[in-house]
């Protein structure tokens, strides 16, 4: 029989902060983390950036976190994952004071642009000096699995370590993979989640020119999921790391339980490299519900992919309706991207983290800037105020370029935190 998979540790490093109560307060109060970009000087290049907004993580939070861990900054995505990982493992009671004991725990992390900052810096050196400019440390810095490898080394996690790269579905896939390992009994504990540090001049520029970023200058109006007047998404950075644990192991350790992952479903559209498909997405949602053995009517919250792009929001609404049927009339649907932007490969993990907070607090966070719901988004959208959570079960949708879809089913754990 499949084992129950509990969440016993959660570390968030988001544009809304790292403190869970503060993150929640900002969600409920409608305070966005989107602001003018400061990670680099957008004026320092031969041609201008069209968009200059992003959802950034406070640099001081990262620096303080690294210092407390006795680590130096290496790469943005890695730094974010390390600090979030430290918070998660500490909360789970798996680490205390160093040195840490080795544990047979896999580390499976999702990321979209991976070691983007290190790659950008290496290219700069290469352009300036040619091959001689490439430092010996370039390989261990730019390889994407530097993220999972450094987590594994720092925390002495001796199970498998690798990263999952599938654009904006990356961390949903990573968490799904870790979930299956624990559920099937291959692992008692797994460290998983996602990280994204995409706000360097190159990757930010790449996204500038694909036509999906909003150029609205008002931070609170940049990213408006499901609104008829939405203009696109905003890029964001951040990390969320989860400790997943079998119910047996959590109970044996007397661990504090934050929530439960009940199911996971995935699919591929197999149609277009960037265009989404409602049918493909609906398959992933249905598979997730089947995996959790729950009916659509049991859901109390749909945490949508909700990117605020033209294509996503209507397609996702159709997919939700296809998958949930009549239940789609009543289940509140919300997106967190108006607050944290699109954190690409970390979005599944960060928004699953928000879902855990919602399940713990019995409240659904608002779509704070939703004024004129798009009539083509025929789902029951949460308004600009938080609302009570009617049933302690939620899905977290993640869809990515490449046509990959991943959906997690999360629930409150009775007697949990």
């Amino acid at each position: 029989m499949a084992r129950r998979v509990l969440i016993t540790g959660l570390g968030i490093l988001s544009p809304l902060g790292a403190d869970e109560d503060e993150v929640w307060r900002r969600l409920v109060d409608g305070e966005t983390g989107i602001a003018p970009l400061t990670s680099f000087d957008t004026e320092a290049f031969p041609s201008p950036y069209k968009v200059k907004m992003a959802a950034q993580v406070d640099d001081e939070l990262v620096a303080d976190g690294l210092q407390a861990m006795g680590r130096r900054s290496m790469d943005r995505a890695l730094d974010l994952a390390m600090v979030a990982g430290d918070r998660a493992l500490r909360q789970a009671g798996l680490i205390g004071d160093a040195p840490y004991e080795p544990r047979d725990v896999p580390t499976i992390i999702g990321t979209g642009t991976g070691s983007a900052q290190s790659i950008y810096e290496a290219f700069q050196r290469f352009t300036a000096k040619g091959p001689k400019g490439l430092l010996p440390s370039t390989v261990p810095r730019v390889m994407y699995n530097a993220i999972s490898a450094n987590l594994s080394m720092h925390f002495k996690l001796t199970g498998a370590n690798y990263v999952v790269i599938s654009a904006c579905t990356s961390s949903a896939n990573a968490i799904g993979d870790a979930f299956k390992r624990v559920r099937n009994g291959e692992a008692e504990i797994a460290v998983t989640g996602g990280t994204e540090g995409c706000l360097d001049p190159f990757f930010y520029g790449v996204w500038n020119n694909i036509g999906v970023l909003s150029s609205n200058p008002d931070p609170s109006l940049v990213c408006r999921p499901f609104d008829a007047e939405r203009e696109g998404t905003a890029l964001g950075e951040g990390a969320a790391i989860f400790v997943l644990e079998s119910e047996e192991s959590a109970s044996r350790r007397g661990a504090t339980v934050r929530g439960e992952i009940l199911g996971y479903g995935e699919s591929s559209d197999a149609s277009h490299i960037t265009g989404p498909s409602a049918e493909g997405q609906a398959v992933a949602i249905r598979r997730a519900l089947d995996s959790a053995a729950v009916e659509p009517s049991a859901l109390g919250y749909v945490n949508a992919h909700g990117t605020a792009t033209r294509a996503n929001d209507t397609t996702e609404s159709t997919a939700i309706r296809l998958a949930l049927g009549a239940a789609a009339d009543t289940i509140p649907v919300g997106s967190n991207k108006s607050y944290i932007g699109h954190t690409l490969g970390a979005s599944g993990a960060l928004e699953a983290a928000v879902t855990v907070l919602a399940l713990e607090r019995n409240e659904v966070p608002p779509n704070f800037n939703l004024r004129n719901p798009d009539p083509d988004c025929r789902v029951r959208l949460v308004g600009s105020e938080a609302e009570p959570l009617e049933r302690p079960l939620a899905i977290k949708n993640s869809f990515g370029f490449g046509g990959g879809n991943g959906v997690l089913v999360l629930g409150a754990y009775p007697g949990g935190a």
Partner: protein
Amino acid sequence: MERTEILPRLRGVLEESSTQPIDWSRLSEETTVESLGFDSLSILDVLYGIEQEFDVELDAGDVMDLKTVGELVTLLAERAAAA
């Protein structure tokens, strides 16, 4: 190559390879290698940077036991003299 010529060039290499908040203008022959805070990864970049700057070949064993920047300067002066 004079010792006085080596130190400023070495300072440039160390500064470029380091992510530490160090006041490099205070680097002297008495500065300990340990105080420079290089780790197993960044030391690779330091060795590589020194090789490029001084056109020498070094391996980790050559510099593993060096305690001060002055000892490193001596090593580089010896290599330059032998070349």
